């Protein structure tokens, strides 16, 4: 059956996570078509971007003030209307905060048990998803006529951003029965010149061992040198050293960069769940017994306050010589 992917966007650009979700949806749909739902306000640039994705055959656009922001109640109404009109067998979204917010809401409208954080598509009705913070993988089979799922972006390649030429079809705005009960007030996005944490090729992450928020400046220097993003463990967030937007782990972001440098992070199960699929993991910790070393490709035991500046200096020397 055909599949629908809910686009994540800010009305001007399409989030890369959506292209990963398209790949997952295509795996579920098999030879059947994949459509993308762009619900937003003045969002034609997003619709164009979605139509250009390789493998997308149709873009449904709901342009209405109620979906200017990704309000789950309104977005779910739009998705349910799209399913009713087009008979999709699957509705997928990336397992971002926004995707996790809306997919189960659709579940209540369609009476379907959603499937969270799919990491592998086994067949059109069978999927693999992590449970217990990734300490076990469950293979689950859904008998719902419409399969609703969030997919973990790091487990599916992004569909190419161009090569497609999908039809763009405007949909009538559906009823939004909760429109006057939930209103967007404000958003406060952390401004950063660094790459987006979820898709950065390099992540430099700090934990409790950093001792204070000020000490994260040391990691920022290293991250900037490597063109990477900053991350943190839940312990560092809990102690108020850094903003929760940096949290990597079961209860935060899941990342899988080419290089992950864990500094002063012991490696609690909950943190490992968020980064153990990284290609190369470097761990710097003063405790030789820290569990982070069991997943690290390169472990260096010692005082991070000496190691990090030395590492930064030596990498800087190589970069300037190159």
């Amino acid at each position, binding site marked *: 059956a055909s599949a629908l992917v809910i686009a994540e966007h800010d009305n001007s650009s399409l989030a890369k996570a959506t292209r990963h979700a398209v790949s997952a949806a295509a795996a579920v749909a098999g030879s059947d078509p994949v459509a993308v739902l762009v619900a937003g306000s003045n969002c034609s640039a997003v619709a164009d971007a979605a139509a250009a994705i390789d493998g997308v055959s149709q873009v449904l656009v709901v342009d209405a003030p109620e979906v200017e922001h990704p309000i*789950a109640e309104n977005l779910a109404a739009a998705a349910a209307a799209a399913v009713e009109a087009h008979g999709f067998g699957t509705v997928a979204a990336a397992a971002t905060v926004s995707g996790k917010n809306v997919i189960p809401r659709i579940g209540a409208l369609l009476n379907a048990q959603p499937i969270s954080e799919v990491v592998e598509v086994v067949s059109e009705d069978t999927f693999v998803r992590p449970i217990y913070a990734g300490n076990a993988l469950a293979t*689950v089979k859904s008998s719902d006529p419409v399969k609703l799922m969030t997919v973990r972006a790091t487990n599916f390649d992004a569909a190419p951003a161009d090569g497609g030429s999908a039809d763009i079809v405007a949909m009538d705005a559906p009823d939004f029965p909760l429109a006057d009960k939930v209103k967007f007030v404000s958003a406060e996005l952390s401004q950063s010149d660094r790459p987006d944490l979820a898709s950065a090729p390099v992540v430099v992450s700090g934990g409790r061992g950093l001792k204070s928020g000020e000490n994260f400046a040391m990691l920022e220097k290293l991250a900037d040198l490597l063109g990477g993003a900053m991350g943190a463990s839940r312990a560092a967030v809990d102690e108020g050293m850094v903003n929760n937007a940096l949290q990597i782990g079961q*209860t935060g972001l899941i990342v899988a960069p080419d*290089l992950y440098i864990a500094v002063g992070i012991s490696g609690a199960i909950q943190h490992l769940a968020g980064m153990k699929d990284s290609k190369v993991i470097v761990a710097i910790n003063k405790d030789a017994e820290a569990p982070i070393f069991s*997943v690290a490709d390169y472990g260096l035991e010692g005082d991070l306050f000496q190691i990090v500046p030395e*590492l930064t200096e030596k990498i800087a020397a190589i970069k300037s010589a190159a």
Partner: protein
Amino acid sequence: MAANGAFGRVLVGVKRVIDYAVKVRVKPDKSGVETVNVKHSLNPFCEIAVEEAVRMKEAGLATEVVAVCVGPKKAQENIRSALAMGADRGIHIETDEEVAPLNVARILAEVAKAEEPSMFILGKQAIDDDSNQTGQLLGGFLGWPQGTMASKIEPVSDTAVHVTREIDGGLETLELSLPAVVTADLRLNKPRFAALPNIMKAKRKKIDAKTPADFGVDMASSLQTLEVNEPPVREAGIMVGSVDELVEKLKGDGLI
């Protein structure tokens, strides 16, 4: 601002899960993870939800806090934990079946219709199945607005709250009309430890015993677990002796 007791009753969802500090083991027959003789606790995000509701009562915003749990007989212990933190009474919907979020939400929706709370607070996810669904499903069934992954709940009138949510890359604030469903994220609060006198007092608080059938809900799920496996083990790496050695390795891998 909301007047005294303006929010009336607040319901809180609580779930019994394997304790967060336990290293879970997959059963040899792949049917699930070992749960026998394994320490169980109140789900940490549910604890945050209970704490928030109790603080609302302490602030004079809520009149009564009711802890609602769908789970096995032993989940009574976990309802008692919520009562020891300050919830007034409990409702235990006893079942030994697997608790699929859709079915739990159906039951909670029926409880909400009977109890008529102003707010239903849940944890954003349970740390066993990591679904992060029940609050959203519940909001959908009730037709109530939802504020998921909340780090702050602020009353703005007798009939509305501002909920600040942890979204990718920052924070978002929504205004929700009551009644509403809110799910708790980590930074909403730091849950208290129940003091011994409160633990003793909790033993005398009332827990209503119900079953899913009382609410007309069949616990069979449309999502069936075929098998549970260990995740692939990452190959052990090496310990390097110095920064120079680390730099050489990273250079060799083409990473710097």
